[in-house]
């Protein structure tokens, strides 16, 4: 029986010409490579942004020697960490120790698959969409526990346990907020009224809960007790040096970037231009048909909104003090969870009423 579908025909046509077989295989890599390049540059920009913004808040100047305006500082840091000696604790569990940071980074990188940067600009158009992010980000605590335990150090173990507890307890409010958003049609619906059509206004409580939960997931201040410098030296990252330390650092900023991208897509209107009643979108609509220019604009808008959220999270980090672990867990379980449940209830009831 011959299954004669268009896909099979195209594949057959490709397989007949042997030269194109390799090219066909390679094409799938190009979007992935583009995304990886974009993410890497994104992390470098975030590191630079963080140092400049924190310097501005603390009334000093940020990096200024590595490259003009200190742009290459992140690359300089990365290179330095690459060239450092890779220490292994003598009586720790070496395999767990080595694998820990990798798991943390991999789980965050996989979440980039489902972020839409523009209309149909998604790396993997899955049915479950945003829930892939939530599911995969639950794997990160395993990496933290492994690194904490494998370090053979009471401080690291403590830090790893705290980090795992924190991650787990803030996943649930996060999931519930995303659930209530997914009842509404995410980016398409936000395009109707420009600025005022943002999900931010339709789900204000959800936005705040999402903001707090994602800051807690990324382990940024005010929730950074796992790596509280004064108490636990560096928590689960204490025994790491060189490239493994760089992986933790990277995972932290990647997590931050993915959280801010999700905030843009879910609440701030995604890739829509969002300034209402300006005839420019008409101009862009013509260009959107043209393809590349429209896509670039979409990506640019998404990134601009993501960096707005990044600015807020960096400013928060350098303004607020740290919460104690029991206060943190109290906030997650006793405060945010009921509120997000209430939010979900509200959204479902309003959907029922509008139907």
């Amino acid at each position, binding site marked *: 029986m011959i299954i004669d579908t268009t896909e099979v025909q195209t594949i057959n046509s490709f397989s007949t010409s042997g030269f194109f077989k390799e090219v066909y295989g390679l094409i799938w890599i190009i979007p992935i490579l583009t995304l990886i390049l974009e993410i890497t540059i994104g992390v470098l920009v975030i590191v630079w942004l963080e140092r400049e913004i924190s310097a501005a808040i603390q009334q000093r100047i940020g990096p200024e020697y590595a490259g003009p305006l200190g742009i290459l500082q992140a690359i300089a840091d990365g290179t330095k960490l690459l060239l450092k000696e890779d220490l292994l604790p003598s009586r720790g569990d070496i395999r767990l120790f080595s694998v820990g940071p990798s798991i943390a980074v991999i789980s965050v990188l996989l979440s980039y698959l489902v972020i839409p940067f523009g209309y149909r600009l998604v790396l993997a158009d899955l049915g479950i969409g945003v829930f892939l992010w939530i599911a995969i980000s639950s794997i990160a605590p395993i990496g933290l526990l492994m690194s904490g335990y494998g370090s053979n150090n009471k401080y690291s173990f403590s830090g790893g346990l705290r980090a795992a507890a924190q991650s787990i307890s803030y996943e649930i409010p996060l999931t519930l907020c995303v659930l209530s958003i997914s009842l509404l049609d995410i980016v398409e619906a936000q395009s109707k009224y420009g600025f005022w059509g943002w999900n931010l206004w339709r789900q204000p409580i959800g936005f705040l809960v999402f903001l707090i939960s994602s800051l807690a997931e990324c382990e940024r201040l005010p929730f950074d*007790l796992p790596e509280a410098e004064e*108490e636990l*030296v560096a928590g689960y990252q204490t025994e790491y040096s060189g490239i493994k330390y760089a992986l933790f650092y990277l995972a932290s900023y990647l997590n931050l970037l993915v959280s801010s991208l999700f905030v843009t897509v879910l609440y701030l209107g995604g890739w829509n231009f969002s300034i209402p009643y300006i005839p420019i979108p008409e101009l862009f609509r013509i260009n959107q048909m043209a393809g590349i220019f429209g896509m670039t604009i979409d990506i640019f808008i998404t990134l601009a909104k993501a960096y707005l959220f990044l600015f807020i999270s960096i400013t928060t980090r*350098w*303004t*607020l*003090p*740290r919460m*104690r672990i029991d*206060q943190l867990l109290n906030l997650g379980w006793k405060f945010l969870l009921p509120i997000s449940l209430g939010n979900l209830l509200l959204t479902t009831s309003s959907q029922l009423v509008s139907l």
Partner: protein
Amino acid sequence: MTVPVTRKDLMIVNMGPHHPSMHGVLRLILTLDGEDVIDCEPILGYLHRGMEKNSGKPNNSTISTYVTRWDYLATMFTEAITVNAPEKLENVQVPQRASYIRVIMLELSRIASHLLWLGPFMADIGAQTPFFYIFRERELIYNLFEAATGMRMMHNYFRIGGVAADLPYGWIEKCFDFCDYFLTGVVEYQKLITRNPIFLERVEGVGIIGGEEAVNWGLSGPMLRASGIQWDLRKVDNYECYNEFDWEIQWQKEGDSLARYLVRIGEMKESIKMIQQALEGIPGGPYENLEVRRFDRAKNSEWNDFAYRFISKKPSPNFELSKQELYARVEAPKGELGIYLIGDNSVFPWRWKIRPPGFINLQILPELVKRMKLADIMTILGSIDIIMGEVDR
């Protein structure tokens, strides 16, 4: 198959003498049960430099370089107590202008010390930005000190009988400008910190000391005043010229870390008030009592003439301490700083005992952390405001 019984042991953690927190070399051996602290044992001595023995050897004129290293953040107080003790022993009068200058310097030093308490306290709680802001204000104080004394931190300014040099021209106006600027700075701290809910949650109800308990443990300074006891040596002893100014004792009732924080912020504001009053009322006159510079003990020797009084800037090497004992104390920003001096009818004192406020205040730390979480240790330690230079001497 039987499941092995898990033993529940307590975890003993060493917060070693080296740690990124900014308290100096204090070692704490903590016994933890998960997140709760069961016991805490501080181990001191990592900064012991033999200050008291060193002061037994050199005489009074050369000791001034040592004393500023006890409490290196409030240096004027250590100098003040070093000259106050022999002054009281030998009944040396201090001219009025010198007294006013001393009060201004002491209050500026108190503000500087409280500022540098605030920075690490907030950094331990997690907000790292106030640390930079306090240095901005402290730099202004350093500038004032440098203009008057020549050194930013380890001034060698106080002399037996007065101060080393008079204030330079224009210093008083600069000081007035600083006072005006600093009041806006304190308001900024109030807005940023005092009403921050996360800060309040971390600090309120943490490390409560009752009034009775504070007196029993021998605490002093803001720790005592935060527990409801209005005891300030500047009012009790009336040393220097504090009784000529109009100021109140800052005190709170609760006795937790928030109360200590509020007492210190209030003290900074009161100090500014005092400095402004002193600057307005500073009299003219000599700035040191030159009698200390006499070379010969006999009163009418020719070596004590006017011509020989300006040879050196220090009290003469023949300044002898008579065979008496005396306890002199000042209200340092950390507490009651005292010197118990036993003279020996010679140039070197027989015993020069330093009563450091940090050492006595630190004793209560194991009591306070017993029922707290691990993160509270830093809050409590920060609110006690110790400095290892004077704890270990």
